[in-house]
């Protein structure tokens, strides 16, 4: 991939981007990137009403779309812009080799329904073996269809992943999926903005997953409710697109409506040459526009948080929501000192995960290890896991799944021989999909068993009824799998 100059001057952008002005043009007021993207997508707004807000791209998967197609059809409506949609199958499909045969009748019907709906309505559909099938939040970026400044929705809360490209991307419910199908727009209230600055540098063996788990542990699962987060700071600018996607992916776990990162050279280098990215002849023009999206000097936010990452150690969750985590080596907090309702919640979480308060979680034995999901199922994640597993064996008594996020991640991993590394270590290298991230397909953690997982949610029963989840980075998952106990990856790096 050739390099792109990202240095076009932040002069006035006279490229026909009328959208950089708001209707009631407070033109001189400095704005942050969230406000800029918001302003540029408001089609119209009546006093006291939500805005009619234009959506540039909607991603679809089999679980949250069928009822929306029904709505459209039952009301005799057409899909407004089928070319602004992109569908795939990921949640309920099997990840075994012969995944074409879906034994679960309901799951099979979901897949077939989506396939038929897409065909009937002319919606691009990334089916098995298209080379592009995969988790919806993995394939958008890979195809280059996720671009800065866009508005992107999907009937899935981890749509925030696409924010890594400087897009305003958020999850919606199925009713809203139908609204976008019918109109290309949504009714929306302007979001509040929040700046999260990650200062400092990550130590070796500490990854963006640890940084985002740290943030969530500090501000809580509702800490960013109603806000769109812009992540900034030295640590962010050093991160690859894969690492940034991991950060933005988990924005929803602190309640944020979305999370995004201003586009820069890293973004442009990633995008250039991808199939649905701007063609070379248009690329610089696109870059000029993308650069104009960056937060103006002195722009304000509704909320700001600064987190220093210099001393951060790997994070692991011990409870039943993503905020209930701590650094390896730190003690799990004790409920004793808390007010009543919080104390009860914490006691319930610890009773469920069977973790001792006041002690470190390091050394806790477990039965399952999972590297995959839209949080950490991309090629870099697989490379990190492979580099640790190479020459080692997964402990007996531990079953390890490595599930690539997409067909193209899988293909790339095989090109690099990572599949061999996983197999020699005794891990299963499977077909792409959401897999064990949620208990919707065949891949589940059995009742009472414990899993160290690179996914994003540790809710009760998330990976299977009565299963226990510990969220961690792919490195921590791999190192723990070798030990059979929750462990740091430090000695492998």
């Amino acid at each position, binding site marked *: 991939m050739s390099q792109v100059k990202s240095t076009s001057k932040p002069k006035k952008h006279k490229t026909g981007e009328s*959208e950089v002005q708001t209707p009631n043009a407070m033109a001189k007021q400095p704005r942050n990137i969230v406000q800029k993207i918001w302003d540029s997508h408001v089609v*119209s707004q009546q006093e006291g009403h939500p805005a009619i807000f234009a959506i540039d791209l909607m991603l679809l998967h089999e679980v949250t779309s069928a009822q929306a197609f029904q709505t459209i059809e039952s009301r005799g409506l057409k899909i407004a812009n089928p070319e602004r949609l992109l569908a795939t199958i990921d949640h309920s499909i099997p990840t075994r080799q012969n995944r074409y045969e879906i034994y679960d009748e309901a*799951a099979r019907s979901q897949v077939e329904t989506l396939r038929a709906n897409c065909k009937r309505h*002319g919606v691009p559909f990334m089916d098995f073996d298209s080379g592009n099938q995969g988790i919806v939040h993995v394939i958008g970026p890979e195809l280059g269809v996720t671009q800065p400044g866009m508005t992107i929705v999907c009937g899935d809360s981890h749509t925030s992943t696409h924010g890594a490209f400087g897009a305003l991307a958020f999850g919606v419910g199925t009713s809203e999926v139908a609204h976008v199908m019918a109109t290309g727009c949504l009714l929306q209230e302007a979001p509040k903005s929040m700046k999260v600055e990650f200062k400092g540098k990550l130590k070796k063996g500490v990854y963006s997953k640890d940084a985002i788990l740290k943030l969530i542990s500090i501000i809580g699962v509702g800490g960013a409710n109603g806000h769109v987060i812009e992540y900034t700071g030295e640590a962010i600018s050093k991160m690859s697109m894969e690492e940034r996607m991991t950060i933005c992916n988990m924005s929803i776990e602190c309640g944020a409506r979305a999370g995004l990162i201003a586009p820069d050279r890293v973004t442009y280098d990633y995008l250039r040459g991808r199939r649905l990215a*701007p*063609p070379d002849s248009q690329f610089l023009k696109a870059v000029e526009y993308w650069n104009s999206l960056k937060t103006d000097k002195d722009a304000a936010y509704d909320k700001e948080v600064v987190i220093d990452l210099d001393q951060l150690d790997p994070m692991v969750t011990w409870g039943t929501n993503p905020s209930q985590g701590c650094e390896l080596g730190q003690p799990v907090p004790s409920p004793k000192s808390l007010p009543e309702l919080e104390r*009860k919640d914490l006691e319930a979480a610890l009773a469920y995960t069977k973790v001792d308060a006041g002690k470190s979680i390091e050394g806790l034995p477990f039965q399952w290890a999972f590297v995959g999901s839209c949080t950490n199922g991309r090629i870099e994640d697989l490379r990190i896991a492979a580099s640790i597993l190479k020459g080692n064996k997964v402990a007996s008594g531990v079953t390890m799944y490595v599930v690539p996020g997409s067909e193209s991640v899988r293909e790339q991993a095989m090109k690099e021989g990572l599949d061999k590394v996983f197999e020699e270590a005794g891990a299963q290298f499977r077909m792409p999909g959401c897999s064990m991230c*949620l208990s*919707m397909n065949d891949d589940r953690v059995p009742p009472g068993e414990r899993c160290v997982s690179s996914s994003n949610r540790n809710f009760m029963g998330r990976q299977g*009824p009565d299963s226990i989840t510990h969220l961690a980075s792919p490195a921590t998952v791999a190192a723990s799998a070798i030990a059979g106990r929750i462990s740091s990856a430090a000695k492998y790096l």
Partner: protein
Amino acid sequence: MKKYETLTSKVVPLPKNDVDTDQIIPAQYLTSTSRDGYGQNLFRRLRDTEPDFPLNQDRYKDAEILLTGYNFGCGSSREHAVWAIAGANFKVVIAESFADIFSNNSAKNGLLLVSLPKAVIERLLKRAEKDDLFVTVDLENQVVLVKEGLTTEKHSFEYDPFRKHCLLNGLDDINYILSHQSEIDEFRTRNAKSWTVSPSNSNEENLALAGTKN
């Protein structure tokens, strides 16, 4: 969508914070392609593991109001969570606060969400756990009325005026948006990007399109 009408009902107490949508409706019950039938699996895990979970108790059989802590409905965007709550015949959820997407989804399905201050929630939760608690929720006037002996407690709540209008009149968003079609068309023309490559135009680049791979 059904219109919301003022309602008086017994309250089901759920004294928890951060109740996530995986608890409301676990993923293994999401494989249906319709909107119906989710009510029976509302809080399935809690119902199966806690014998005295309120929804297992006969005394709450006809209750239409759920009362809970803060950040209710966090996690997944699954609208199935709302369909499950509505499917179990709840019309109102009262909590200290709600997660964003859940709150949006509720409005689109005629489920009224009412936020009250922490102190009030905690007091009402205690009362509802002890005795039957009846509450009236009046959206028109944005008040929750709680009978206490001969007196009535009155708690006002805030509610977005546009959502209120839609709920009280049973309106949904599609028609509202479609009534602005010409503005939408004009917006699209004005903002077309010269660099857009649409997936449906890329057959020759080996992108699989609907049906071509079966």
